[in-house]
């Protein structure tokens, strides 16, 4: 069963077709990358998949469940986890509390008023583990607003992992990062590849061609090609639309 199937997904903003009948799949263990020029509708598509943007037409199935009409938090509870192009974190919290918030989103009984959230040893261990995976164990008690940009992006991934996802949507995890920071994230993504089905939206061509099993090219809201990285590199239509002559 595919982790994600979209069928003829459409989003219009006024007269603009931001998403034009997009059909794609993410298979179990697959890393499917979406590339496309600025304004191609990549973030809109991610928003539709996560439920933050209501689709006008089409359907989204996650692990066989039709989530087209489901609110965001219920999709997340099904196992759909996402990161944002512009980091969305609780800035006043510590890094650990951000991840704890993610861990608790998966807890069956989080509606508790009494016990101290920090006294839940199992949840705290899970949060610490997620921070360790992204290499932030030394930053448990750092206030998130004081973290470097690259660290905030890593934290986003740690939070997504802490929700024990069954499908990861990563919206430009390398955006605005220095070369060193990018290398760290790329090796992190490599270690995640195969363990989770991943839909990766990314600008960085090198990274995409190194990581992806399949690549889809999105132009003006429409997928013009889906293929292996090598074949996408050679695709004439893709070159014309996106990669430019020197690619």
């Amino acid at each position, binding site marked *: 069963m595919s982790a994600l199937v979209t069928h003829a997904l459409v989003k219009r903003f006024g007269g603009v077709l931001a998403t034009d009948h997009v059909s794609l799949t993410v298979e179990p263990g697959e890393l499917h990358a979406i590339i496309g020029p600025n304004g191609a509708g990549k973030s809109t598509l991610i928003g539709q998949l996560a439920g933050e943007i209501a689709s006008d037409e089409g359907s989204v199935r996650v692990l066989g469940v039709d989530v087209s009409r489901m609110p965001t938090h219920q999709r997340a509870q099904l196992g759909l986890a996402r990161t944002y192009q512009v980091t969305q974190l609780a800035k006043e919290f510590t890094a650990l509390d951000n991840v704890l918030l993610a861990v*608790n*989103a998966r807890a069956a009984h*989080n509606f508790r008023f009494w*016990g101290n959230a920090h006294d839940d040893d199992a949840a705290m261990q899970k949060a610490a583990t997620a921070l360790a995976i992204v290499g932030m164990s030394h930053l448990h008690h750092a*206030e998130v607003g004081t973290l470097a940009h690259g660290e905030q992006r890593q934290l986003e991934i740690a939070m997504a992992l802490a929700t024990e996802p069954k499908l990861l949507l990563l919206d430009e995890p390398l955006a605005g990062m220095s070369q060193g920071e990018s290398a760290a994230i790329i090796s992190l993504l490599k270690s995640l590849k195969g363990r989770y089905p991943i839909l990766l939206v990314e600008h960085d061509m090198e990274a995409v061609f190194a990581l992806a099993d399949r690549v889809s090219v999105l132009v003006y809201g429409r997928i013009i090609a889906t293929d292996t990285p090598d074949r996408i590199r050679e695709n004439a239509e893709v070159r014309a639309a996106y990669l430019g002559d020197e690619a």
Partner: protein
Amino acid sequence: MSGTKPSSLWPVAIQWSAPRTVTAVIIIALLAVLPMIASALESSYYVSFATRVLIYALAAIGLNFILGFGGMVSLGHAMYVLLGAYAVAIPASHGVTSGFIHVALAVGVCVPLASGFGAVALRTSGIAFIMITLAFAQMLFFGAVSLKDYGGDDGLTVAARSTLGGLDLTNNTTLYYAVLVTVLLALYLSWRAVLSPFGLVLRATKSNPRRATALGHPIFRYQLTAYVASAVVCAVAGVLLANLTLFASPAYGAWTLSGELIVIVILGGLGTVFGPVVGAIILLALEETLPTLIDATLPDYKSNWMLLLGLFIFFVALLLKRGVFGSLPASVRGERSKPELP
């Protein structure tokens, strides 16, 4: 970052020697012995004034739960104070004097009412949320005005204080301690709730509701629960206020009182549990002393005392972004204070 301890997963919630904690403990200790000081000074007025301060503090503690920790700016919370006051005055006018019934009635009406109002208001956020809560409060205000059988806009006097088992609330000192205990209980409950898994999500809805939702938290349920809980605290404050003043009037639900509660919360320090107590003490003490102070020094300007109060609030807002209590360090080692500290 440097200075953090990677080995400790569980930061200590309260540092007893931190300036904030010491201040809170001193204030509570002073409040505990206040009636004795007042009787030594043979001035019973201070006891009833302090009771009023604590009732305002209680209502502000309720508001702070959603304003300081949930980021919900309700400009209508005085309506729940109004509700609590009428839950005393109306039964009392029919000869029902049991305090238990008064409290049960206040809570019993408040919970469904706040659930309905909250469910509607929480469809919105920001300015629209402020406006809707204000509109609901105005509805209740004029609803109270239209109660011609119960005094209309003149309000309704209460013949006697509520009877509460063995507690003799007609004694001002007993009433004071009943209010003080209620305030301490509310402080303890809100402190526990803020640190709880519920509180973590509530604080996250203030900080980044989009992220909390994307993680899978049904934030509406958290926000509505917090809103109702905060309304109940204000309703209890209303019950106590009617007992103190032996009076209930639509003015208790005026939007100016809702605004005053917001000022108290911000003055004390948003996002601190104990801040509303400090805010209530400062605001009411200034309202009490400034007119006499100006009368003694500049009698011609007596009616302008509000100007001085406004200046004071202006400078607190300008210089102490975290409020008076919130600006005190919450830890001894100079680390950044955490919001869960009292």
